[in-house]
């Protein structure tokens, strides 16, 4: 068990909806950005003197630019449907972590200054003055929201607290009250090209190392090309894939699939990051600036297709926003969707029978799958609604013999966030990360005990990092989290590859065909 300065919630059979405990998480706020972190992104370095007016100005500006914000601020009827849907509320019992109460932190100010009822009858409608304390409260609770959209599924009007959180963070940034973690990372992308700050040289070394590893293991020279002009496919993947465990095993998986598919592909050092934290801070401009790096590289390298690696919010920005932010992509091959998810690519290859698969390679595991919130509730894969939920499962089932789903209320569109999304994946927020993981950990523990599940697969760099950190708090093992493409990698027999036991080969090929 990892040591914790706070009480780690105990896992029981069900996650009971807790009785509210006011102020339970009021003490927690992430580190504030250093001035240069803010200015790099075009925000004031420190809290501006006229923050009061500037806050209202920005709120007014945003509600005129975002229909979502304007409608959501007005439409909530306080029905309470969302109150027990947030993993952070379930894990902390702090009522301000109930989605509607989180929205109300902003809504009460909106009402006070921008609505008739709030201007003249503030008490009646719960409108409140904007004070310095309000800002601190926003800073605290809008950084206890992973923008996972679970609340939006259950709200009768689809009110999405993520949109409110993004707006609040944008307001805070605009007055110089930014969050260190997100802003520092975005600046790294601008300066170096990825969240981790891996320069081109280091990247090239890593990829070379991977090529050696794969060749050593399989005897086949699988390439991991970088900055290759004229390649067909540009692969954009979260930078964690370049070195962190288990992420890197996923990257090896993509490489093997692309190799077997016989396509020419490349990574880019300039756009060596799929993640786009511009979304977390609600800044259209920053999100756009990060996205346009991909457009630039696609043009410079002259690729025909863009494929994204395993990452949740990155796939949201890619699938839902990239065309808007950095389009139109009329210079790419119109026969393929832009962008495409590696899962769509692999599933397509599996269906075409281009991959030689030995499912038994994963027989030491019984798997379950964690739907990443952004993938499940904000994107699609394939042509049909829900493909984002089915296709990863199809891929897993095609490469593994043992697969079980977690409780149906905790997967698919109702999936629980890992607890570390939305710009919360930082050590200064460890308490909320651990507590917010409670519903997912409970569901996992149940399938481990009832169905003998040993490992949980994920398709998001943040989920993977978060679980690696958080599993030990709940008495589980950090290695229990795996990438989907790691499973694919295990099972693929590359063309020309000699398997360990040649005698078995015939048998396995038969199995793969069956």
């Amino acid at each position: 068990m990892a040591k914790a300065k706070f009480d780690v919630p105990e896992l029981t059979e069900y996650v009971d909806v807790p009785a509210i405990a006011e102020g339970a998480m009021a003490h927690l706020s992430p580190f504030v950005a250093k001035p240069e972190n803010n200015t790099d992104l075009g925000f004031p370095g420190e809290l501006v003197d006229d923050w009061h007016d500037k806050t209202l100005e920005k709120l007014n500006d945003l509600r005129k630019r975002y229909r979502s914000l304007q409608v959501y601020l007005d439409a909530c009827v306080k029905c309470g449907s969302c109150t027990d849907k947030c993993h952070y509320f379930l894990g902390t019992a702090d009522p301000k972590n109930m989605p509607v109460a989180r929205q109300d932190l902003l809504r009460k100010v909106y009402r006070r200054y921008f609505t008739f009822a709030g201007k003249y009858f503030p008490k009646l409608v719960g409108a409140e003055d904007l004070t310095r304390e309000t800002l601190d409260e926003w800073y605290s609770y809008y950084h206890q929201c992973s923008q996972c959209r679970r609340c939006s599924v259950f709200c009768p009007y689809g009110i999405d607290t993520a949109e409110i959180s993004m707006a609040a963070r944008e307001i805070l940034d605009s007055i110089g009250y930014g969050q260190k973690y997100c802003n520092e990372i975005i600046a790294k992308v601008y300066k170096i090209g990825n969240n981790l700050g891996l320069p081109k040289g280091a990247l090239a070394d890593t990829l070379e190392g991977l090529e050696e590893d794969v060749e050593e293991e399989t005897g086949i020279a699988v390439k991991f090309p970088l900055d290759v002009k004229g390649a067909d496919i540009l692969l954009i993947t979260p930078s964690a894939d370049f070195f962190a465990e288990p992420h890197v095993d996923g990257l090896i998986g993509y490489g093997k699939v692309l190799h077997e598919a016989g396509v020419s592909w490349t990574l880019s050092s300039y756009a060596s990051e799929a993640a786009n934290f511009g979304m977390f801070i609600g800044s259209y401009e920053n999100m756009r600036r990060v996205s346009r790096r991909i457009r630039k590289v696609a043009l410079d390298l002259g690729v025909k297709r863009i494929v994204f690696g395993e990452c949740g919010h990155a796939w949201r920005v890619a699938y839902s926003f990239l065309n808007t932010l950095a389009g139109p992509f009329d210079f790419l091959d119109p026969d393929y969707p832009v962008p495409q998810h590696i899962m769509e690519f692999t599933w397509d290859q599996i269906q075409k029978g281009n991959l030689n698969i030995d499912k038994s390679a994963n027989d030491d595991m019984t798997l379950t799958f964690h739907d990443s919130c952004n993938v499940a509730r904000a994107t699609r894969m394939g042509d049909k609604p829900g493909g984002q939920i089915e296709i990863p499962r199809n891929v897993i089932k095609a490469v593994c013999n043992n697969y079980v789903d977690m409780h149906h209320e905790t997967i698919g569109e109702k999936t629980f966030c890992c607890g570390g999304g939305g710009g919360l994946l930082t050590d200064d927020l460890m308490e909320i990360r651990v507590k917010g993981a409670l519903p997912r950990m409970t569901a996992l523990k149940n399938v481990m005990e009832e169905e003998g599940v040993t490992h949980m697969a994920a398709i998001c760099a943040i989920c993977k990092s978060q679980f690696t950190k958080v599993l030990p708090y709940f008495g589980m093992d950090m290695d229990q989290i795996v990438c989907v493409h790691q499973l694919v990698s295990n099972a693929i027999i590359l063309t020309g590859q000699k398997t360990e036991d040649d005698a078995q080969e015939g048998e396995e090929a038969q199995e793969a065909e069956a």
Partner: protein
Amino acid sequence: MSFFFAMLFYVAALILVLGLARKIFQYAWTPAPLKIPTTPAPVTRSGVVLRLFREVVFFESLFKSTKWTWIFGWMFHMGLFLVLLRHLRYFVDPAWVPTWVWLPIELIQPFGIYAGFAMVVGLIGLFLRRIFVDRVRYISAPSDYLWLILLFFIGFSGLMMQFVSHTDIVMVKQYFTGLLTYSQGELPVDFPLIVHLLLVAVLMILFPFSKLLHVPGIFFSPSRNQVDNPREKRHIARWAKALDKQETN
């Protein structure tokens, strides 16, 4: 008295219509810069119409969530809907509209009677939930209780008229159809009717300034009304286009 109510209802109707029009215009005019449907979402326009239909008629998302709120909320709204249809007879002279429009309204009249009860029972259920569930109590402002109380007394006074102290329906009808043609009639002076009408006027006046904006809001909610086709079709807002123009890299 009749004159006072005539003025009151003209003003109330004006505020309701103009207030709602202003809000609807605002929602329609405000751009939605990004595609944010809550997925899995329909990939066609007609799919979206169906999704909204299910939300408006069945409260689909609420149903997924909490059955008690759903039951009471749905009873209240369906009751309200039928009651309002039944009320059309006070405002519309059958001679004004074609039979095929009027006939269905005529047919539901008998059900309208029970609908009034459904509405009131639903409201009581919602009120109790608001008081007894600690989470819902926490998020409630005074106005949230007052709305339920207001609607309850509208319903209660209506039911009083129907079952306890009848009012002269024919006179009410003459009076309100008269208002529509700007010819002043006489209103029967009954306590329940006066209460009923006063509260209804309050409802109409407050509607566009309150959470009752959920009615237009649901149709404008991007997470529900957008088609899931961002890869196929470029979606771009006016102000975002301006950014594209500024620099083209």
